[in-house]
């Protein structure tokens, strides 16, 4: 099976994730889309590792997973806190920095 198909899949997943971040308002969905983009990147890393025949990409994907796990913890905590104080998980409502 041609390895480039994995790359295409990775690109498609990343694009879906990016579009999701931009167009969805719900913080949880935005968050899930970010995860999707990270995993798309992971897929690309692993595929490139396979293509080049070394382990660099696989190591990088582990780093990504660790960072993603941390990010999930912090991100979900922030989202829960925002939801508690504002009764809403919409990212557009959390635009206080503008003012």
């Amino acid at each position, binding site marked *: 099976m041609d390895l480039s198909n994995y790359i295409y899949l990775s690109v498609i997943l990343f694009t879906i994730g990016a579009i999701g971040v*931009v167009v969805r308002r719900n913080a949880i969905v935005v968050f899930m889309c970010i995860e999707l983009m990270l995993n798309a990147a992971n897929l690309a890393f692993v595929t490139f590792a396979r293509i080049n025949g070394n382990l660099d990409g696989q190591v990088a994907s582990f780093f990504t997973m660790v960072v993603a796990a941390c990010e999930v913890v912090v991100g979900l905590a922030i989202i829960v806190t925002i939801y508690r104080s504002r009764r809403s998980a919409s990212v557009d409502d959390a635009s206080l*920095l*503008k003012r």
Partner: protein
Amino acid sequence: MTTSSHLVYLIALPLISAALLLLLGRKTDKWGHILATLVSASAFGIGVSEFFAMQGRTGDARAATQKIFSWISVGTFKVDASLLLDQLSICFVLLITGVGTLIHIYSIAYMSHDHDRRRFFAYLNLFIAAMLLLVLGDSYLNLYVGWEGVGLASYLLIGFWNQKPAYATAAKKAFVANRVGDVGLSLAIMIAFAQFGTVTFAGVKAGAPHASTAALTAIGAMLLLAAAGKSAQFPLQSWLGDAMAGPTPVSALIHAATMVTAGVYLITRSNFIFDGSSTARLMVVIVGGITLIFGALIGTAKDDIKKALAASTMSQIGYMILASGLGPVGYAIAIMHLLTHGFFKAGMFLGAGSVMHGMDDEVNMRRYGGIGKLMPITFATFGLGYLAIIGVPPFAGFYSKDKIIELAFNAGGTKGIILGGATLLGAAITAFYMTRLIVMTFTGAKRWDEKAHPHESPILMWLPMAVLAVGSVATGFLFNSGNSLVNWLAPVLNSRNEVGGEELMKPIVVSALALLAVIIGVGIAVGMYRKEVPVVAPEKVSVFTRIVRKDLMQDAFNEAVLMRPGQKLTEGLVKTDYFAIDGLVRLVAGIFASTSTALRKIQNGYVRSYALIMVGGALALIATIWVVTL
């Protein structure tokens, strides 16, 4: 050269007195005028003793110097604050302190009703100190300090009654006109330093014969500009008439006898410069010639007695400047006329002040008439001054002015005839306007108000007038007997005894011509003004009279040629500054302000738009890399 240790007191005494009166203020009101007069008199005393001490010395030892302190010492440029009293300086010292003391005495009475008499005397002393520094400085730079000092004193005294806006303006006008001349003096000093590496009179004198004619001409022209500013010569003459806003004793001391003659001093002192450049001498002669006719013409149409005398001063200084441009012997003759003029003109100004004192400060001669009978002493002293100025033998002006006319005729060729003719014409006009003045003031029917009560002035006022009148009578004969003044000044001025040049006419013929001119002038004036004099100046007069009444358009000329273009230039500069320079700065600031206003809108606080921008940025980056590596 003798060294002296007490020249400095000549300047220090009046200076300290002036500082005392100004700093202690009203506390000195009671005795300030007495102190000032005593100080002036003691300066005169020192001057007289120095004069006799000089008589006792001979040759080069006659001149005395005193180094006060080392003033500037920068690299090769060294200037000492030191004084030089030579045969030329002593004439001025005696004139300044002598006439100055008389005018101090006169002012005690004249200013007795003035609230600020103390301040007046403080300024007078300041003037005496500055003027003495001017004539005693041994270098151009020391002279310059005194030159500025008398300018300041003149400004303060013209504007003494500065509660009247017109008087304050007159003071400002004098200051500005003088400033133009001062620029000339400072340029002359700079050129002299560049040329000779020194600014002392002795140093410049030693270097002058080796300098190029062009340099000497440049220095001479700049010195002439300075002299024109200070001595109210063409084309900087217009301030003198307005300077009559000052109290009359000031007009007598500063604007007749001493300060305005500083220009003549400057030129005669710089004889070594002018000896080396015939072009510079020609310029001096032209300026003097124009001014002597100019001033005399203005004098014919003035109804204000002080302004008529001011015009006359301008004209007489024109004679002196003319003489000092006519070579070695001219310098001495110029100084001679300066000294005699100092006596008779100061005397006449004090006489005019005396008349004003008796007439409630009325200055319009058309409101005088028949005062001679009521003020006999004033009439007599004024009359002697009058005879002196128009040049009736054997009064003082005859000797000095006659010499100048003779000198002018002997200048040679066409130049001689033109100059001689101008001086003769000037003499005739002088006789005309002075006769007009005296006829309108002292004789004829009375034209004054019922309220005025003309009365003779107190002794403190007529005594100085009497002394000056004696001077007007005797000085000419004194200076001329055995060429005493010319011989006395010869070591400083390189002047020879005889009137030089080829003789166009015999001296006796010149004298006769001059006398004829005077008789014609007097005759016309008596004929015109013996009859009824209208109280209001007639309106229906010729164009020429109108122009002369407006001071030959000197103010209009200055306004059109200097003031208006100057204002336009300033306006233009202000506009350039506002639109071009400020505009550029404002444009740059505006670009940044509007750009940042536009950019600020990106910061809308929506997370999703930030995300979009990031995505866009990432895409753009990738696209760029793709394009570059393609």
